[in-house]
């Protein structure tokens, strides 16, 4: 919900998704092609700064969104920098070799820059806009329709879950651990049936509006799309120039 909120509330809500997609793509390319860890970290810093200062996403919100992926990244870096060695007898020993640490550092720096590129995109672009962009990029309709339905049903499921759990709480459904386990089990069972019924009714409502051949929607218009894409292209070239070691 945090990402969804800022995707709609940021200053770049009216900027063409194509421009934001191009900038994110450049960020990914810069991350993968960065000559050194320092340059990868530099591109990550640039991407974060653009998201915070340009799009106006608050740094606290950014950190909250980045917290979980940063945790995974830290775990991966730690496991990469450690290797197990077994000499044939006795217990295996942990080793911290300089090569492994350098590899972990470089890979983590690249991953950090990639994460900054993707977070910048999703924190500034609502998913429906991204789906409209993917549609223009000829992504198969079936995949997009699944994305549309899953995205909508996610919020329907969340609303159902909150309403039902509130109702259970009001009737002491979570007063003890045993009651809580029972309530959650009932809730999940109920939720599955409810979602199945919702899906059936949504199908009927689509038919009522002459649907059936596919889910087609009109994308919003971005009056400054050319200017936005042009600026994004220039910024992307600058980022790649700096991180690929050309500067």
């Amino acid at each position, binding site marked *: 919900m945090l990402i969804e909120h800022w995707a*709609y509330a940021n200053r770049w809500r009216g900027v063409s998704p194509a421009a934001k997609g191009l900038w994110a793509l450049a960020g990914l390319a810069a991350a993968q092609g960065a000559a050194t860890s320092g340059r990868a970290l530099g591109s990550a810093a640039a991407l974060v700064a653009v998201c915070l200062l340009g799009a106006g996403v608050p740094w606290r919100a950014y950190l909250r969104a980045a917290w979980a992926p940063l945790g995974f990244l830290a775990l991966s870096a730690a496991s990469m920098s450690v290797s197990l060695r077994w000499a044939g007898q006795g217990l295996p020993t942990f080793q911290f070799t300089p090569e492994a640490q350098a590899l972990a550092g470089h890979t983590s720096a690249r991953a950090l820059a990639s994460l900054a590129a993707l977070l910048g995109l999703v924190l500034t672009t609502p998913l429906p806009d991204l789906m409209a962009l993917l549609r223009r990029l000829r992504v198969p309709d079936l995949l997009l329709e699944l994305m549309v*339905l899953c995205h909508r049903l996610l919020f329907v499921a969340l609303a159902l879950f909150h309403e039902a759990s509130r109702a259970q709480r009001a009737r002491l459904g979570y007063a003890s651990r045993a009651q809580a386990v029972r309530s959650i089990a009932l809730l999940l069972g109920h939720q599955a049936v409810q979602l199945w019924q919702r899906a059936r009714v949504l199908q009927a409502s689509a038919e*009522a509006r*002459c649907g059936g051949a596919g889910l087609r929607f009109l994308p*919003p218009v971005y009056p400054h799309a050319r200017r936005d894409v042009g600026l994004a292209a220039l910024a992307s070239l600058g980022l790649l120039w700096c991180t690929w070691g050309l500067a």
Partner: protein
Amino acid sequence: MNTAKPVFELQGVAYRYPDGPQGLHDCSLRLERGRRHALLGANGAGKTTLLQQLNGLLRPSAGQIVFDGQPLDASRAGLRALRQRVGLVFQNPEHQLFSAQVFEDVSYGPLNLGLDEATVRERVRAALADVGLSAHALAPVHQLSFGQKKRVCLAGVLAMQPEVLLLDEPMAGLDAPMQQALTALLDALVARGVTVLLSTHDIDFAYAWADHLHLMQAGRCTASLPATDLPSQASAWRQAGQPLPRVLELHQALQQQGLGLPGEPPRSHEALLALLALSARPQATPSTPPARMNCHD
């Protein structure tokens, strides 16, 4: 009485749901073109089933539905043609909205009609303006209130410009100002020639707004009458277990107290107050009620 060809005619329609319950029993009904119709009945009376029959989502197991003088064609092409002309707004907006953005969801129906993009954009803009949601065009659906979601649902159907508009409990969950705005919008649609059929529990609203009242009980279409005939059929209406509109009860009580009020019985609280104000002035003795009283006729 309007003797023109009805837009819909149900002839002995019956329907049983696949999981057992009987939805409709031998239901016969006529819907006059370009009029306001209210479908009254308790929960489980079959109102939603009937509305879904008219949009072709359900098909009769017996009897037939005649649309615009022709038996309803249940083929794929026939249903598509029907749904281009007959729009259905569901009771629960969560059952109808499946796009994440308001603008996208409203554009879904017009795009399915095969219209070009410019026309669809114009229709979406007009529909959102009609329901007062122009400022929310780019808003995410899940951040809207219940009433706003209902209005998005209505806009999604209005953008298809149907000749017949079916609304399942449209007033449920709306506050008074929203109900008034919706009533004004429905009146404007009827003035453009759209036939409106809505289901409701609210006899006071139905009597004030509708031209025709249709009563359903336990899956049967038990009565159809012009709303103006209700005062003369009040006892039969009561015998059917239906409450009378409060304004009609009050009007009858005032008359029993010897306070004779001129003209037709009022259809709304406001009309009754206007009538009382007129009768209180000795110099004003109009032979017909004021225009406001018949604004819904």
